[in-house]
């Protein structure tokens, strides 16, 4: 069952499910020429290079969908009119100590999940830090809210990790900073409404991110509703001997045990109606994911939230991996043991490949929501700057940009930054943010 659904990929043009042996999509007749090593059709648009770099490569080379036209200055193909993929539609990070993959999925028109990852050289060895936020659907500007939240939250966690400080307190500070960053959005005007390509992204080429032609006013943001921007929050700091998680909403962290699949467990608890009903004995745990209440969150970043973030400290019994994810993944596989089976043992040695496997699983299962998966092998691998940087020369620039944005974010957390240079070597901190 699992094998079958995993082998079924999606048509790059219409997103219908296709079989490995198909040469054409049954639904839209698009040619399926790109097959990856695993033997199934790549869901990346034809002609696209390695995922994670697609936006810059395709806008220079031509349309990702019809391969006939160049992409115009406003980001649309001059032949078929399709919008060039936004960098955030599918984003990956591999910091060796941890890896992250986020994808807009098959049904939504933009990715409202955001993820920040960092590695820090700490007095007690390397630490991995991640924050995942999921813009609450139905609220306005969920993509901006989640991005502002992860940017706002990260400095509090990285500061504490670098200084060997109290990570539980830092986690609460991080939520406060994220909360302030989201609240600040309600006060300001919408930035480039209805334009999923994030104009602030320094890594995005101008040709694919240009929001509109000169002289054209921004289109009215029909996606905006009366609800103010809001997002879920989950953070994890994986240190040499413990894992500190913090969550508000229904994004999750899991412990996946390498020695004992049954030892896998969910580290966070959801702030959702379904979780409350399960806790009150009104709903069976196994029915929770499919219940209509599964996605009604009872805690969030943004206006009118009354729930408190919950912090947990966990001391892993041995080898394994920490998974941090949005509901786009756990909707299809919420069971910790099942997730461990899919991610391990790969997550221990190649967390990026394992994170991709989780995301592809959710896509093959329907990809109804945005999907984010971050995997941190435990214990965190020693930080090896030379090796890591040799393999990531191209992201050094975005590291710096991402980190400086994070440190310039609102909140008291940035007050005692260790230094002005956010790049890896000087401070022992490396940061990447999905945008």
């Amino acid at each position, binding site marked *: 069952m699992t094998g079958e659904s995993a082998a079924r990929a999606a048509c790059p043009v219409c997103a219908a499910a296709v079989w490995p042996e198909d040469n054409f999509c049954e639904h*839209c007749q698009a040619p399926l020429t790109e097959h990856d090593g695993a033997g199934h059709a790549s869901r990346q648009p034809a002609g696209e290079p390695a995922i994670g770099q697609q936006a810059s490569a395709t806008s220079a080379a031509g349309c990702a969908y019809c391969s*006939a036209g160049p992409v115009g200055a*406003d980001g649309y193909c001059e032949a078929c*009119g*399709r919008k060039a993929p936004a960098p955030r539609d599918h984003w990956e990070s591999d910091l060796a100590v941890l890896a992250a993959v986020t994808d*807009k999925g*098959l049904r939504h*028109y933009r990715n409202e999940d955001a993820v920040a990852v960092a590695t820090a050289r700490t007095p007690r060895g390397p630490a991995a830090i991640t924050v995942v936020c999921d813009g609450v659907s139905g609220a306005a500007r969920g993509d901006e809210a989640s991005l502002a939240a992860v940017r706002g939250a990260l400095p509090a966690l990285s500061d504490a990790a670098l200084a060997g400080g109290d990570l539980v307190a830092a986690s609460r500070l991080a939520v406060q900073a994220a909360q302030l960053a989201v609240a600040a959005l309600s006060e300001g005007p919408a930035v480039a409404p209805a334009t999923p390509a994030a104009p602030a992204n320094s890594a995005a080429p101008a040709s694919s991110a240009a929001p509109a032609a000169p002289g054209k006013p921004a289109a009215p943001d*029909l996606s905006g509703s009366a609800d103010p921007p809001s997002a879920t929050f989950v953070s994890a700091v994986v240190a040499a001997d413990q894992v500190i998680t913090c969550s508000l909403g229904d994004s999750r962290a899991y412990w996946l045990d390498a020695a004992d699949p049954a030892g896998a467990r969910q580290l966070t608890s959801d702030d959702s109606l379904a979780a409350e009903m399960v806790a009150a004995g009104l709903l069976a745990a196994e029915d929770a994911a499919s219940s209509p209440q599964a996605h009604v969150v009872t805690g969030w970043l943004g206006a009118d939230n009354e729930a408190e973030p919950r912090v947990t400290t966990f001391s892993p019994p041995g080898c394994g991996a920490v998974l941090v994810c949005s509901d786009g993944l756990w909707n299809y596989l919420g069971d910790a043991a099942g997730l461990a089976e899919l991610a391990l043992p790969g997550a221990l040695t190649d967390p990026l490949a394992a994170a991709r496997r989780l995301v592809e699983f959710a896509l093959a299962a329907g990809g109804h929501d945005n999907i984010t998966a971050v995997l941190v092998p435990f214990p965190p691998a020693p930080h090896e700057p030379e090796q890591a940087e040799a393999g990531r020369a191209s992201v050094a620039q975005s590291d710096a940009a991402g980190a400086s944005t994070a440190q310039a974010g609102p909140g008291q957390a940035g007050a005692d930054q260790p230094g002005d240079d956010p790049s890896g070597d000087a401070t022992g901190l490396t940061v990447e943010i999905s945008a």
Partner: protein
Amino acid sequence: MSQDDFTVDVFQNEYLPEGGQEANAIVTVTSPDAGQASPADAAGPAGTAEVIIIDCSGSMSSPPSKMSQAKVATAAAIDVISDGAAFAVVAGTELARPVFPPDGSMVVASAQIRQQAKLAVETLRPSGGTAIGQWLRLAYQLFGSYPATLRHAILLTDGKNEHESPADLEAAIGLCEGEFSCDCRGVGTDWVVDELRRIASGLLGSVDIVPDPAGLAADFEAMMHSAMAKEVADVALRVWTPRSASVRFVKQVAPAVEDLTGRRTQSGAQAGDYPTGAWGAGESRDYHVCVQVPPAGLGQEMLAARVSLLVGSDVHGQGLVRAVWTDDEALSTRINSQVAHYTGQAELAQAIQDGLEARKRGDEDTATSQLGRAVALAHSSGNDGTARLLAKVVDVVDVETGTVRLKRAVAEADEMALDTRSTRTVRTRK
């Protein structure tokens, strides 16, 4: 805020349901403020040419006030022509004759020339038939003899085009399309609304009824003021669409409904140009663009149309019509108020024309239901001008439901006024 170039604003709901194939948008084009158009684009008086065409057929003598008022009106219009602009006056019968200058050329206006022209107009005597195609052909020749970019005619008639075939008239309109614009006026009630509407439509001008000849002078003066206020000639909308997409229609919807779909000139493999004529300073017009697109998957986005404003061959503004497929019904079912409003205004014009046509045929049921529908649409959209015209043709029983009774006695002028002005729209109440 001073505006120094054309702007193009797009109003739409870009969200389509799964499999949705139609993208609709209202495109609002606004021209630069007075004196702000670049000198390269502004024509100025030296680039302006006017031809006034006066019906001199025998019927203009009954009542005699028609001819005398037409002369007064022509003189009033001549007085408005700016120094430096070229003009000519044409007398129309079953033939066309240059009245001033009498040699069949254009003349540059000055105080003295205007005086001479008015004296020449005084000599006009009604006699003969009506062949409007001939009048248009002479205007075409006159405009062709003078290098102006803003070319505009005023055409006055009081009767049916009966001394040439409809095909002759149609051929003349085809000849003149794109060469000059023409505002048409019918005086009295013996002319045919559809004929003048066809000319005005082809030549991107207005059409109206002047039931009482006494109203001609003020109307001519206003028309000529408006013509003199035009600054930029040959403005077009260029609509780019993706491969496998097609333009369903492009309609001007404000200030009046004018279907431009058939006026497309292909300007590229995936682009066509739609003429909008000449623009005055600070003018604003709305267009409804409807494009059929090949559906993409949920979550995908496509550019359904790129609408560019062209002056000559230069792009002066651009707007994007987008299509985003979503399974979020709250988004895909949202009605864009602009699109809905103008869809209603176009229906209003159609209901009036269909209703009046049914009434002429004696099909009172259709007439009652169509005119009733028009009453309800005019009311709900705040088109008070059209509502007043409707009230002269039907007795309104219930304005909300559009329940009406046809009036037994309707003045011909009222019916023609309703028909002629049926395409006039109002903008949305913001």
